[in-house]
Each structure stands twice: as structure tokens, then as C-alpha cells.
């Protein structure tokens, strides 16, 4: 599948390039932009980024696979990230993860059949004071209880 950046996104990448003395440094921003446009990072995406930033595709691949926030396969519209690190674990993060899996009927890194949700167990998200927490895409939901989580899922479902 061919991949081309939209014109707006090309501009965003150019703006990002202007921040650094080397084009290559914009690769992380470019991968974010691509992920926003395409949903996840494919080989074609990486080839396109390599062409724009004048760097080897293997380097783009190296970066895309090193950092965990670049998805290498499709995720749901709401990518639910559950923190189970110590602070959250002490307050029931593991149980939230199990509850999510049960309620959505999927395992980690799977997507629900309606394409709405996917689950990922993540490391500390820096919200230890509000443990346990999950993040739906970029939005943090802290101080959760099983009931609050259920409501959150229902709300997101309604929003579609």
C-alpha cells in the first residue's frame, strides 16, 4: 500500500526539521505525524520518511522499533494503556487490566471487532499520585475504580 503524506502534514514535518541542524533529527516527529495519518507505521511509511529526511530506511526502522509508542500494527480508535507499575499495582492496576480484558473480550495488543478498543499494558505513565490510572490515547484517567472504569468504557463506546 503506497503511503504519501498530506500537504498539511508535509508542512508539519518541515516545521519540525527547522528545529534541528540536521534533517534526520525530525524522524521521531515525522513518525508521530505518520502514525496520526495512517494509524500505524508500515514499511511504506518508513520508506517515505526516509526519502523526505534523506536517511537510510534501516535507520528509520531502527527508531520506529526502539520506541514503544510507535505502533507497528493497527490499534483501536481508543488505545487503552493500563499502567501496572508499582504505584498503580499497589492500588489495583493489575485488576483493572484484567477487568478490561474481560469486559472487552480481547487480550493485549488485540483490537475489538468493532475497531474501537485495543489494550496495552504499559510501564509507569507518570501519574503515580492518581493511581490506578489508564490512558485512552493521550487522555489520562486517574484514581479509577472498577465502576469508574466501566463507566468510562461505556462513555467511550457511546461516543464511538
Amino acid at each position, binding site marked *: 500500500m503506497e503511503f504519501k503524506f498530506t500537504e498539511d502534514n508535509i508542512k508539519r514535518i518541515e516545521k519540525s526539521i527547522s528545529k534541528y541542524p540536521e534533517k534526520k*533529527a525530525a524522524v*521521531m516527529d515525522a513518525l508521530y505525524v505518520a502514525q496520526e495519518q495512517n494509524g500505524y507505521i508500515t514499511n511504506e511509511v518508513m520508506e517515505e520518511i526516509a526519502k523526505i529526511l534523506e536517511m537510510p530506511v534501516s535507520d528509520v526502522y531502527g527508531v520506529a522499533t526502539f520506541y514503544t509508542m510507535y505502533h507497528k500494527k493497527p490499534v483501536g480508535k481508543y488505545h487503552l494503556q493500563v499502567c501496572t507499575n*508499582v504505584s498503580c*499495582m499497589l492500588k489495583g492496576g493489575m485488576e483493572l487490566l484484567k477487568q478490561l480484558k474481560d469486559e472487552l473480550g480481547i487480550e493485549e495488543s488485540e483490537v475489538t471487532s468493532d475497531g474501537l478498543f485495543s489494550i496495552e499494558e504499559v*510501564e509507569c505513565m*507518570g501519574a503515580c499520585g492518581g493511581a490506578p490510572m489508564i490512558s485512552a490515547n493521550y487522555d489520562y484517567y486517574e484514581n479509577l475504580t472498577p465502576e469508574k472504569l466501566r463507566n468510562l468504557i461505556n462513555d467511550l463506546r457511546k461516543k464511538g
Partner: protein
Amino acid sequence: MILEKKDEIIMELNIVLPKIKDLHKIDVYIKNDGYQAIKKALAMSPDDVIEEVKKSGLRGRGGACFPTGLKWSFMPKNDNKPHYLCVNGDESEPGSFKDRQIFEYNPHQMIEGILIACYAIRANTAYIYIRGEYHNWIQMVQKALDDAYERGYVGEKMKETFGTDFYCNIYIHKGAGAYICGEESAQMNSIEGKRGYPRVKPPFPAQNGLWGNPTTINNVETITNVPAIIKNGAEWFAKIGEPTHPGTLLIGVSGHVNRPGVYEVPTGTLLTDIIYKLCDGVPNNKKIKCVIPGGSSMPPLRGDQLEGVKMDAESLKKAGSAIGTGGVMVMDEDTDLSKVLLRITHFYHHESCGQCTPCREGTGWLEKVLKRVANRKATSKDLNLLVDIAQNIEGRTICALGDAAAWPVKFMIQRFRDEFEKYVNESVELEYPNKVHSMRNTKIPLSHLIIK
């Protein structure tokens, strides 16, 4: 702010980072003497600014507690290369969530600190490295930056605003979920658009940093302290808290406490005061089993040995731990420490960048053995094995992640040996033999494999 309980004043809070409503808005910040410290700094020579910060005794808040002024003075003085400042807001240490508060409530004080630091180290470009998960906070900082650019406090316009030759551009670099990028040299690689592999030191960043140019890396909290020092003077700052580690700390308390959150306290505050007075104690008045005082990689302290432990670099060192990033994690008496330790080790296994063998392999071994302990399938020997593996990681890696992975295991087992002995048996029957070599691709029944 002064925290009062009944009639008794407990301690003074928020000395360096004032709690003023809407301080994140540029107008409110300017009304409260904002961007005056940079004006004052620009009237001094860069060396005088460094000298002032040196005199204040400010030490890095990222974990190593290195004197900030000294770090700045390592930057070459008469060279033609561009200088850079990196502001470390990667904040991925489990238990640490203090920088987020600064991004949300005091972004302008951070920006002003960056300007002063850049002036002192003669840099015209600064990168704020913020972890990707903090997307919403990145937008808050970007908004603050845009406002500051528009008012002419940042960028080329500075020359007009302040009437000097100095200018500074500030950019945000968004991370993408790698704990290791909190390590300074890995962070520089990440900014350069590479995998976040730590670099071998020397050469140190002050000689050979971003794109081979002199670079200084400071923690967000460290930088945010700078405007207050310039504004109020080094003597004022040096008088706050402990003389060896002056100033205030942003302490993030999480785990089993009634009121978790971030508190700005003077250094040298009693750990028990933080837990019982600020955070209102442990739910259901349970006893404390274990406290990790500075984020997951710091050695844990026993709950029965917390009396008199103060929160500053030297005191915690004496108590057998370290201040780290000030992320206090409290665990009550019902906590299963084997599960906590397994979770911590899983984290380091996951985040090891894979460059150094002791860390890449060792963290995996630690996790495997700890899984047995957590599943009650281990013997007392396994505990010794864990300490042994940990000691073979410690000090044998390029960066400090190896130590960070080894310390919790080593110290938790040593300090809570009584506890861990409860988790192990005299002998266990394993469903599969406990061999180090890979059994994955063999068709030989395991029972036939007998080592003589």
C-alpha cells in the same frame, strides 16, 4: 503556603514554586515578577551567573545530585562551536511524577530558567525533552512557549526586549516511550533522531554532546529553581533546608497513603512527616512495610527504620538509600514484596536498551528467578542467586540502568531477607528444569536431559 494543622505550623511549603492561581498564564506570571530574573541575569556576566548558582549550592534534581553551577562551568568558554542546553523532562522513573506539575502549573518559570541557563553556558538553542505519554502537557508547555515567543521573551525578539545581543530559541522534543532516554547521553541520541542508546563517557556532554557540540543537560526541576536563585540571591537559596543540599524538593508520594500527590518541601524534611502529616498516613492505620524514597531504582527502606530519616542527599545516603527523583512509594504491611520486586524487575528488563550484556541478559534472569519466587516455586538458594546476579550487573554497564535494575533486587532481598524467606520453600518441584541454556528448539524430552 504554610501548612497548618489545628494551631500547629507543620512546615513551610511552596517556597520556590509559588502556588498562585493561573500562574501558567503569561500575564499572571509577568504580574508576579515574571521574566525579571532573566533581566537581572542579563545585566550580569555569564560567569557571574554561574558563580551565583554555584554559591547557592543548587544540586541536580534528576537523581545524581550533581552541583548545577559546577556542571555549567564545564562548558568551554572560548570556542566557535554552537552550545546546547537539554532540559530533561523524560521523567519515566516509576514513582516519579513531579515534572508534570511544573509543565502544568509553572511552565514560564521553567522557560525563564532555561533562558538564564542558556545565557550562562552561552547557548542559543535549548531542547526540552518531554516524554511522549505527556502529550497533553507538551501542548501546555508549547502554549506557554508560543506566548513567550509572541511577547518577545524567547527567540530573536529577545534582543529588542532586553536590549542585549543574547537570544535563545527553545524547542520541545517529544519522546516516544523509552525510559532509557532519561539518561543524558541516550537523550542526546534520541534528540539527534537515533535509537536511545547511552553513549560511553568520556567524552562528557560538555565537550561532545549534541551533534558533537558542547551540551549541558539539566532536569526540569533544577532549571525551574534557577530564576528564584537569581531573583532572591544565592544566600537566600542556600539557607533553605539542609546546608549540604539546599533548596526545596518536589516529592511525589504514591502507594498506600491517604493523600498521595506532589509536595514541595525544604530538603531535610523528615520522611515520616511527609507520610504522616502531609499525606495523612496510611489507609486503615496499617503499618508500613517498605518505603522506596526516590523512585523505583533506589534502595528500599524498611518500614521499622524510618524514624529520623530526612529527605536530602546526604541523610538518605546515611540511611542506605538515595534521594533519586524524590518519588516516595509507600507499601503497607499487607504488601507482597516478591510481587513488587518482580514488577520492578520486569520494568528494567523491558526498558534495558540491550547494548550491554550484563544488563540485557541479567535483567531477564532476575525476572525469571523472581517469577519463581512470586509463584512460591523458589528455594532459599534462589535468593542468593538473585543477589549474585544483581551484583554482576552492578557497575558493569555503560549507563546507570544496570545499577538501577540491580539495586532494588540486591537491597530488597538483603534488607527484607526475613520477609523473602517466607516466600520460599526448602525444596520445590519445578514443572520444567531450571536450566540456563535454551530448551526451545530441542525435541529431547526434558527428563532425558541429565547433567552429570
